[in-house]
């Protein structure tokens, strides 16, 4: 390669957070104070926390909906809610939890943690990252605006046609869902691209792909998977919206098409989505548990490969949501067998955790309790899923409360328990203070007991034949006491979640000061101050193992990571891009400044969607032009976007 003016060899020096370099970086990376700074920041740590907080708000909204539903179902034939109210509430509960809580909360953790885990300073596309958050927020507001009009979606989160078609559902309910979902899909897709590029291109020198933190494997796998899955659901909802607005007959049997097409398009996305909202959470457990067991994860390579394999197989099981739709025996045999065998990679993770606990020394803190609780509910949710893979048995189980139990063990068990473990683990990193451990223990037992009291009996009411999505049920079916127990359990569980919020509120101000590495953990985020400086790392570290903060004690080899001595990148906002497999330094990336453009662009995109919802076509046209204009300003080419790092450490 010829040497050009763009080539630069970064210095390698030792520097700490009090050095002149640190002060210079602080000035470069700091978000400006005030309201404009707040709206224009592209700092991944701020955006990550916003993601988590917003997702938790949606968790509360979905939780309140669930508590109302549980009151209606506490006894047979109650008339607390009308059928229409019940339908809107159960639909919104499902949509909120699956789409606006479960995935965004994990995105929040990933946005906050991935750059630090990888030893870099921001996501690959910081402005896109901000835009992704604003779109997520506006799509959620659009969805919840439906409540204000009394027209919340009411056809279930799965939204099957023809019940969701105009003929049977003439209100705006489904339009809200379709448009909000497409909007959220934009956010999810862009976010996935950002993660893939960040993880494959921004790792610190020496962090070759086999030294990637296990949590990054979850995020990477999910992001790649979603790039393949998202088009299907976005198109499905766009087609449905076209059917409803313009009579395009894409799902209409009288128009020569098949309503079943909806189910294929929906579940081809839907099942990978299930893995998208659990794989990063499972990887979080694989990241936290070893720290709490004082040893590296057993079987890193097997667990990483199992994560990838789960997502790959996850694209071959969508039909198991459709076993009762009259498919051929051959198709049923294939998809049934794959649905059972997809348990194998989950077994890899499970035995890796068990081995980690047995061969380590568990520290019984709150995040360990949540990890251990997670493993138990992981197994219960796993075996009930395994049962639904057996096609003829699924003909009985499907659409009964057995499946309701299953999805709650998966969504609460595999997602929320991991998220709470993550909150206890990383709260000190994010805020500089530890959460209260005594409240934490109460928090765990209330949530764990409440959860199992609430949701385990659903397996039994399912086996006793209680169908899903019924606004009431007759007495003398054998379901009365089970439903009452479930309602009581759900309120206990809600109390546990409330205690978490109380703990956060108290500890935010009065918690014990955490210091850099309160858990004596192994990964790079614990090498930064708590909370980390705006620029994360004074110098870009050079990595020599999977456990940069433990390797001296593990005595794994002669070469050690260099954390305090590394590459100086201070000619503006800069990060290092490295090669995808070996993490050889290649390019110095110039990162963009804070900007109001992502917010402005997100608002304009939202106006397009609101105008489409309200059929104000001229406004939709103008807003589209504004989006194009803003994108042009945003993407206008500027000088010196990249520099080659002429250096091989």
């Amino acid at each position, binding site marked *: 390669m010829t040497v050009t003016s763009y080539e630069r060899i970064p210095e390698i020096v030792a520097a700490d957070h009090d050095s002149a370099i640190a002060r210079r970086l602080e000035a470069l990376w700091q978000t400006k104070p005030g309201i404009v700074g707040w709206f224009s920041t592209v700092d991944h740590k701020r955006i990550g926390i916003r993601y988590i907080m917003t997702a938790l708000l949606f968790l509360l909204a979905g939780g309140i909906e669930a508590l109302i539903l549980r009151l209606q179902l506490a006894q047979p034939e109650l008339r607390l809610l009308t059928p229409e109210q019940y339908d809107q509430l159960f639909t919104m509960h499902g949509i909120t939890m699956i789409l606006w809580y479960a995935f965004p909360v994990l995105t929040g953790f990933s946005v906050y943690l991935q750059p630090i885990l990888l030893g870099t300073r921001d996501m690959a596309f910081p402005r896109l990252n901000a835009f992704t958050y604003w779109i997520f927020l506006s799509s959620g507001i659009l969805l919840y605006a439906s409540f204000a009009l009394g027209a919340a979606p009411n056809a279930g989160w799965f939204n099957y046609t023809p019940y969701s078609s105009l003929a049977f559902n003439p209100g705006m309910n489904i339009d809200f869902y379709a448009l909000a979902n497409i909007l959220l899909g934009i956010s999810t897709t862009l976010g996935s691209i950002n993660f893939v590029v960040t993880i494959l291109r921004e790792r610190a020198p020496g962090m070759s792909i086999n030294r990637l933190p296990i949590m990054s494997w979850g995020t990477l796998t999910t992001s790649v998977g979603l790039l393949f899955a998202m088009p299907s659901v976005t198109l499905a909802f766009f087609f449905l919206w076209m059917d409803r607005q313009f009579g395009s007959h894409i799902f209409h049997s009288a128009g020569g098409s098949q309503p079943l097409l909806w189910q294929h398009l929906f579940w081809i996305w839907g099942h990978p989505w299930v893995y998208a909202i659990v794989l990063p959470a499972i990887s979080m457990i694989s990241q936290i548990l070893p720290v709490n067991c004082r040893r590296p994860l057993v079987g890193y390579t097997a667990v990483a490969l199992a994560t990838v394999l789960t997502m790959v197989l996850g694209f071959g099981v969508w039909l198991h949501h459709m076993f009762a739709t009259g498919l051929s025996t051959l198709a049923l045999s294939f998809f049934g067998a794959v649905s059972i065998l997809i348990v194998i990679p989950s077994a890899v993770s499970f035995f890796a955790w068990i081995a980690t606990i047995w061969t380590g020394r568990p520290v019984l803190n709150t995040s360990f309790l949540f990890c251990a609780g997670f493993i138990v509910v992981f197994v219960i949710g796993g075996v009930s899923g395994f*049962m639904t893979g057996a096609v003829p048995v699924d003909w009985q189980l499907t659409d009964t409360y057995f499946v309701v139990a299953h999805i709650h063990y998966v969504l609460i068990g595999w997602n929320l328990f991991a998220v709470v473990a993550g909150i206890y683990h990383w709260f000190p990193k994010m805020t500089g203070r530890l959460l209260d451990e005594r409240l934490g223990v109460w928090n765990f037992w209330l949530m764990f007991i409440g959860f199992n009291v609430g949701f385990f009996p659903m397996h039994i009411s399912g086996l006793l034949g209680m*169908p899903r999505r019924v606004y009431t049920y007759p007495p003398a079916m054998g379901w009365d006491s089970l439903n009452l127990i479930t309602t009581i359990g759900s309120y206990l569980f809600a109390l546990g979640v409330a205690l978490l919020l109380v703990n956060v509120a108290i500890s935010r101000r009065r918690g014990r000061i955490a210091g850099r590495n309160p858990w004596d953990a192994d990964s790079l985020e614990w090498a930064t101050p708590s909370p980390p400086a705006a620029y994360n790392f004074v110098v870009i570290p050079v990595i020599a193992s999977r456990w940069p903060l433990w390797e001296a004690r*593990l005595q794994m080899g002669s070469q050690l990571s260099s954390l305090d001595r590394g590459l100086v990148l201070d000619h503006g906002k800069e990060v290092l891009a490295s090669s995808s497999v070996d993490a050889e330094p290649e390019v110095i990336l110039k990162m963009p400044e804070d900007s109001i453009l992502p917010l402005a662009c997100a608002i304009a995109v939202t106006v397009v969607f609101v105008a489409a919802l309200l059929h104000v076509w001229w406004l939709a046209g103008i807003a589209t032009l504004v989006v194009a204009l803003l994108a042009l300003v945003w993407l206008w080419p500027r000088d010196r976007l990249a520099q080659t790092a002429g250096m091989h450490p």
Partner: protein
Amino acid sequence: MLSFLRPVDTSRVSWRGIQSSFPAYARSPARALVTLGAAFGLLLPAPCVASAQTPLSYLSAQGERAYPINSLLWALLGISIAVIIISIVFVLLGTLRGNALPGNALPGRLMVESPRRGIGWIVVGVGTSTAVLFGAAVWTVVTLAAVSSPPGGHADLYLEVTGHQWWWEVLYKDPSPSLTFKTANEIHIPAGRTVSVALRTADVIHSFWVPSLTGKTDLIPGQINQTWFSASSSGVYRGQCTEYCGRQHAHMAFEVFADDTAAFKAWRDHALQLVPAPVSAEAAADVDAFVRKCGACHAVGGTRAGGILGPDLSHLMSRRTIAAGALPNSIGHLSAWIADPQHVKPGAYMPRLDVTGPELTRIRRFLLTLQ
């Protein structure tokens, strides 16, 4: 004759059903596991099964198609419960066997263990799991093949069931049009004979399910799905729509009455009979009131009421429930239903007609003649 109308005491049946299904797989190598699973499985729902009737339970099977599926269900349930118990033991023992550190043990530079140990857990654990999973997959495919179509490929009785928001239309098909007739929300079959059902829908997607006899098959616009089942003994088996289909999805039940062949034939002959001409002016006025108020949507064979939007009401009084299982078929409930269907099933397509008192009396008096 009426003895089969007695509700099935499934609490009793399910215990017996479990025991009687044992020989089917008692010889299999998975016997220990199944026994363990069944034991735990019985413990779980026991309080509910023992204390109440559970007409929609699928823990016991009552027909040729349901038996092999039920065996597989119990086997998988047994494996699942065993796995859960083993896992809890692993987690608890691993945590509490004495080398755990207290939660406040940090901070401090604690020792960390070598990454090399422990891989044996994954090899043995995943190996064992894979063997069990392969076994389950093979059993699944074998069972699937066994129950996909009725034995011999043909059935003794062919029905066509159409789902409506929110009731079931049942058509008894026969090569001779005079032996073809419709009923609603009840299916009568001869016990011990195989029944083939063609499933279609008049509106949205529904799902046909009789837990004791057969699993679910969806009713989907634009296609006709097939299912089949048989009942090994006389009895009443409850069914239910299980695909969310709108506001009254909760109230879309039906019942399958299995009876011996002679009784079934008697029922069918009775069902084919038309309403005799009214014998008095009073009775004729009753029919008129019914036709005027109800005939646009409902049909009664032998009258001018020929509507197809609602259930066929011929022989209404021979049915055990009304409004797709929402109410028992008594005079009181029938009157309440006609007077204000929206109170019983809010959102149902049967409107509140504001019938006057005398009209209600006439309509009810006519309906009561539909034995």
